[in-house]
């Protein structure tokens, strides 16, 4: 009796298992290394006379309390100050925003069983946009704060309005993925019409400010923008990772999820709340940055498959890398808002992913 065949099959399975693990690790390592490299590049970008290695030395030195003399080491003094007060807050925001939007994108694609879902599918961006534009153009504030703080709080509160509407509606009708997206579309149309009304009645300068906010920019962000985003992103991401097994079940469809014991309706609402708070905490500071939440999870799924226990954390690192690279290009070469560069990078990547997957990979969620 020949017993070698099962053994070879087992060896093959073990090799395939190791190969899959290696792929996951490799993608994670590449994206983390990419993040470290891009933070360095962002730190030295066009700062004359400072090399990449010097940038890392400055960062390391700053951590260890190294100080430079302004009179004799002016360039290093400014570089240290620039890196700590400008580059690193920007990089931190890019990492948090990229990770958060990618996690939310993964969440929405799984929970809505829709590969085109992103953090903005439920109308969150239009709500945030309405809040911010109301502050910029009309000066209406949902809070007592004015200026930049008023815009941030308006955007945050506006971003949560669609989620609140969805939750209220879900108490009255059976909310399926399709109805969530349709309700989100209806909310988007409503808020977009209000935003359009405000924008067509304003002057060019204010229109530019409102439009820049809609595109998404990291310009002018400092460490003060980081704490809220950091806390929400860390806690929210931990929740998404914790829910990733259930996301696998949810992505099988409502009937399968219910038969596997998941209360899909309430789970969907929980995910909606989580995603809304995470996304609102990001875009209220940065404006609406598209494509991260949709491109990063798809890139990851091509490499590591559809198991959300891996897709979620690796998507977060890929999303952070994508947004960092976009910001590096935006700051160093184009002096454009990061949202423009992200769209320029994201749209062709997304197109290639669709074509590639249709040819060879099958389903993309």
């Amino acid at each position, binding site marked *: 009796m020949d017993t070698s065949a099962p053994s070879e099959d087992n060896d093959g399975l073990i090799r395939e298992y190791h190969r899959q693990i290696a792929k996951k690790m490799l993608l994670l390592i590449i994206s983390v290394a990419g993040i470290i490299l891009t933070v360095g590049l962002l730190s030295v970008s066009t700062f004359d006379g400072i090399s990449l290695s010097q940038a890392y030395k400055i960062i390391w030195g700053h951590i260890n309390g190294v100080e430079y003399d302004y009179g004799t080491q002016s360039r290093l003094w400014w570089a240290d*100050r620039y890196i700590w007060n400008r580059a690193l807050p920007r990089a931190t925001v890019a990492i948090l925003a990229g990770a958060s939007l990618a996690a939310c994108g993964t969440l929405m694609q799984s929970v809505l069983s829709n590969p085109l879902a992103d953090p903005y599918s439920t109308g969150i961006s239009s709500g945030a946009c309405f809040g911010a534009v109301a502050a910029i153009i009309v000066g209406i504030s949902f809070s007592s704060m004015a200026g930049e703080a008023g815009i941030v709080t308006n955007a945050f509160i506006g971003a949560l309005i669609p989620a609140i509407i969805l939750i209220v509606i879900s108490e009255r009708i059976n909310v399926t993925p399709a109805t969530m997206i349709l309700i989100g579309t209806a909310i988007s149309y409503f808020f977009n019409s209000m935003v359009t009304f405000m924008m067509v009645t304003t002057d060019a300068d204010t229109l530019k400010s409102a439009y820049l906010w809609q595109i998404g920019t990291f310009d002018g962000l400092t460490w003060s923008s980081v704490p809220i985003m950091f806390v929400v992103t860390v806690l929210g991401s931990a929740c998404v990772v914790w829910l990733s097994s259930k996301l696998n079940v949810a992505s099988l469809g409502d009937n399968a999820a219910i038969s596997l014991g998941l*209360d899909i309706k309430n789970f969907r609402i929980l995910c909606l709340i989580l995603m809304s708070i995470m996304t609102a905490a990001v875009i209220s500071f940065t404006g609406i940055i598209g494509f991260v939440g949709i491109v990063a999870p798809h890139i990851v799924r091509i490499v590591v498959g559809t198991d959300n226990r891996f897709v979620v954390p690796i998507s977060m690192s890929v999303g952070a890398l994508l947004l960092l690279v976009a910001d590096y290009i935006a700051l160093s070469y184009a002096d454009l808002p990061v949202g423009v560069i992200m769209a320029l990078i994201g749209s062709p990547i997304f197109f290639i992913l669709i074509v590639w997957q249709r040819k060879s990979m099958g389903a993309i969620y």
Partner: protein
Amino acid sequence: MNITSYQKKLGAIVIVALIVIGAGAVYLLAGSDESQAEELGSGLLIYGNANGDLVLDDDDINIIHDIIDGKKEKSDYPMADANRDGKINNEDIAVVEALIAGNETTVFVKCLDSDGAVIVVEVSYPMKNVVPFGTNIVEPFLYVGGGEYVAGYFSSTYPNQEASMTGAVDLEGSSRDITDKAWRNFMNLDADLQDEGGVGALLIDHSAKSFSESRLNDLSAANIPVIRYASADQVQEISTALTLGFLCGKTTEAMGLSYAESSLEIYNEIQDKVKALNDDERKTVINFTMWIFVCQNDSTFNQSPEYVGAVPYYKTNSAFATDYAGNTSTKMGGVEALANYDDADYLISNRSLDIGQTDMDGLIVEQWEKNMQYFENLDNYHNLVYVNNILPGSLRLAYMAAAIYPDLFTKEWADGYLQAFINAGYTPLVGQTLETICTSFGYEDYIAAKG
């Protein structure tokens, strides 16, 4: 459908999360309100200018001598302490003598902080490698010949007016907004200039609100002096030009003095003529910037009506005063924004327009029609007047006075003063004529330009 306990828990989670995030946001984001600019006073705003006039000269030295000798009280001459050491002695005389001789020294300058409070900053004399920010301070600095002392500037939209800065580094950004990239360019410029002592000073127009606290912290850490003036105010613009001219050395000091004396001549002539006006003869004025931004009650621009014998409209209409309280400007919310306030006698639009124009009619038609829908239905539409905001401040007052009180002043009278300024050789105006500079225009000019 009944609310399940699960949904109640979810609701509780949302509420708690929102309260925590909201409280955090309020704590982290809340900022302080802007406060109004204090009066700086006129004249040369340099310590050592004991008598507070337009020049630093022997009169100031004599006053300091008299204080040392006990013939005069120190408290009557707060600017006599040239080195700001709290004592009046021969060291102050040495500083003033060095400044009069044009020798290198340190000078203390009175200016504003970001809240509009009067402060004193220390500047190396003569000042060089300057970076100005904001149209209202760039212009007076250039009029006194400051262009050659500019090391870098934030991108300009007035290439002809600001041609004398072209030797300087374009830091990008704009006169209203400094991007991160523009600020990094500024840092690079300061590093490049270290052999010459770095950037000598940053000049800021007080109405340019976009200068962030974090950037001011950078400047403070680098000991780069920030000289801020509310130079949109035409009288403060005179002392701005005088002081900045003084700081750059003897050539610009002379230009600054000439500019200030010429400006004061116009200002005094206007004052002499309008002082005879009765209260009921005084016209009311609503000021605008950038076409449709209504200047708030305490805006720097709102001083100008009073300088020409008119009355800012908010002083005559309490509803308007309530709607436009503050010290900046408010964008008109729609074409009906001023519907209840069209009994104001004049609408003055402070609009910056480059010199060196070749198609004046086209410019007037374009500017007039740009936001016409906001004004054309108002009863006072025909009394809307555009005044070029990059003209010297006193000339802006002259053209404003000519528009508001045509019986007392004429546009030709104002043109005469502009020609005198051109003849005096204030840098941006060299080579210009009355035909290449858009000064002011109203409805009739628009109709004529439209043909």
